[in-house]
């Protein structure tokens, strides 16, 4: 075996992974491509034009919707990842406590129930609260999104925690580290890949939600997906492609900057 020393190479895996990345990006390239379409559709090329960027730039409603989606996803990710990390620490690597199965089922419950059911029920519950308190802000959407994002954050973190080596934490405890120090300096860094994976899943899950948002939103609270819903029926225009492309571009720029900055510091 020539690559005997590349012990982590498994036959065909790299090929499949490269193909998977290609497949992931072909539609995205198409999407970006059609944001420059001169025609009114996302099917059939009619020549190059920046008109859809102009349209999107002039359409405050859709910009606000895009921004609102990001804000909700930000808060929902923060809340759900925090509580999910705590819950994962509380339910793994320990003797199961009484009722732990019930907790496990409860945490995964948002996954099991079709969205429309949660949506209708939340509509009824939240509408009552809205009438009683007069508060109609984004809090309802953030709470609802936080709840259904919890399993998406919890499962990767738990997968990371399960069977994670206890010896380092034990060593820390032996060296008289306080539980908090042990957690902060030992457990958390070990857990980080799981938390990052969970947070990313929570973020994209929140960003894509339509049904629950549609039922919970108050006046003037459209998100990009609920705005898009109307276009499912009446035909998609490249306007949303333009917005998505701008959002993608912005994300890539911010993260590249972040990556370069943190590298400098090293």
């Amino acid at each position, binding site marked *: 075996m020539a690559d005997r020393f590349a012990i982590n190479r498994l036959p065909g895996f790299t090929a499949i992974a490269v193909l998977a*990345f290609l497949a992931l990006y072909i539609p995205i390239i198409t999407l970006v491509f059609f944001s420059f379409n001169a025609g009114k559709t996302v099917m059939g090329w009619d020549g190059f034009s920046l008109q859809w960027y102009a349209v999107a730039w002039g359409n405050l409603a859709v910009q606000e919707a895009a921004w609102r989606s990001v804000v909700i996803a930000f808060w929902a990710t923060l809340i759900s990842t925090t509580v999910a990390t*705590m*819950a994962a620490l*509380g339910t793994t690597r320990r003797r199961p406590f009484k009722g732990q199965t019930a907790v496990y089922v409860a945490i995964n419950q948002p996954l099991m129930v079709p969205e429309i059911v949660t949506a209708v029920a939340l509509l009824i519950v939240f509408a009552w609260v809205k009438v009683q308190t007069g508060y109609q802000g984004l809090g309802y959407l953030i709470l609802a999104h936080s709840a259904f994002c919890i399993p998406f954050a919890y499962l990767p973190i738990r997968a990371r925690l399960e069977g994670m080596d206890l010896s380092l934490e034990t060593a820390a405890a032996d060296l008289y580290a306080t539980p908090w120090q042990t957690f902060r300096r030992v457990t958390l860094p070990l857990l980080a*890949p799981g938390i*990052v994976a969970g947070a990313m899943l929570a973020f994209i899950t929140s960003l894509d939600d339509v049904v629950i948002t549609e039922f919970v939103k108050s006046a003037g609270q459209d998100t990009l997906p609920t705005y898009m819903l109307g276009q499912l029926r009446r035909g998609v225009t490249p306007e949303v492609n333009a917005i998505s492309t701008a959002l993608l571009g912005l994300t890539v720029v911010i993260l590249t900057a972040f*990556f370069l900055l943190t590298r400098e510091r090293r």
Partner: protein
Amino acid sequence: MSPAEEAVLQRSDRNGWLLVAPALVVLGLAAILPLLVMLVYSFLAPGDFGNVKWEFSTDGWVSILFQRDIFDGTLSLADAHLTIFWRSLWLSTVTTLLAFLIGFPTAWFIATRPARQRPIWLFLVTLPFWTNLLIRTFAILEVIRSEGLINTALIRMGIIETPIQMLYTDGAVLLGMAYVYLPLMVLPLYAAIDRFDMRMLEAAYDLYASRWMALRRIVLPIVKPGVVAGSILVFVPSLGAYVTPRVLGGGKNMMIGNFIELQFGQGRNWPLGAALSMTLLIIVTIALLFYVRAANRPRSDHG
């Protein structure tokens, strides 16, 4: 178990409930309370124009399994409901398998990059999902339709003469679903593979294990929690999926998600919708508990 380990465990024991409490509060308000509302609704009578009438009725539950023939009034087994349930289960199962077959090598690939590169690769997997599901699905449609990217390329290269009909086929739906749910499989798998100690593979090869054997006997058992998490995250949400089946599959047949939505929409039968979703919840929960038990059992031999 050393006394120190015991101490760590006991500490977390005390804190167990405290740690899960915040999650339970959020879930209680926005997931479990609504579920109780729906449980109540499933035992009420449908309102004339949507909503419910506040009178007790078990019709919602009865009509899951039995339907009254609208023409002669006889009660018979609701084969339409069963067909829809079965189709959704089948689609979700195949989607999960497909996502695993593609997702495992991808996650492995990411986890075996140099440490500083891994966040970039992870980010590259999630980036496509920052765009809206609908836009993403339409982009796939543009790639596979008769005059789309693939067909045009194949015809230009002279491989085929007439376009292959890919849109509105089962294959299109499955590939589209696997695409849509891929990160839900890759990220938990990555989190599990990442802590896998590659020296164990080395040891296996030293003992003349084949790569396939090493994969099956050493890697898979250890990353199993990731496989469990990923499968759940793909399987359950794809049960309720309907945008992808409609746009890529043509939407001639309903998924369980559409069917429940119909009851809360034009079907105007909220109790049936509520009862159907309770049934789905029960089936999936039981399946999940079995799956998690079965998946966890062999772990004791290794731990």
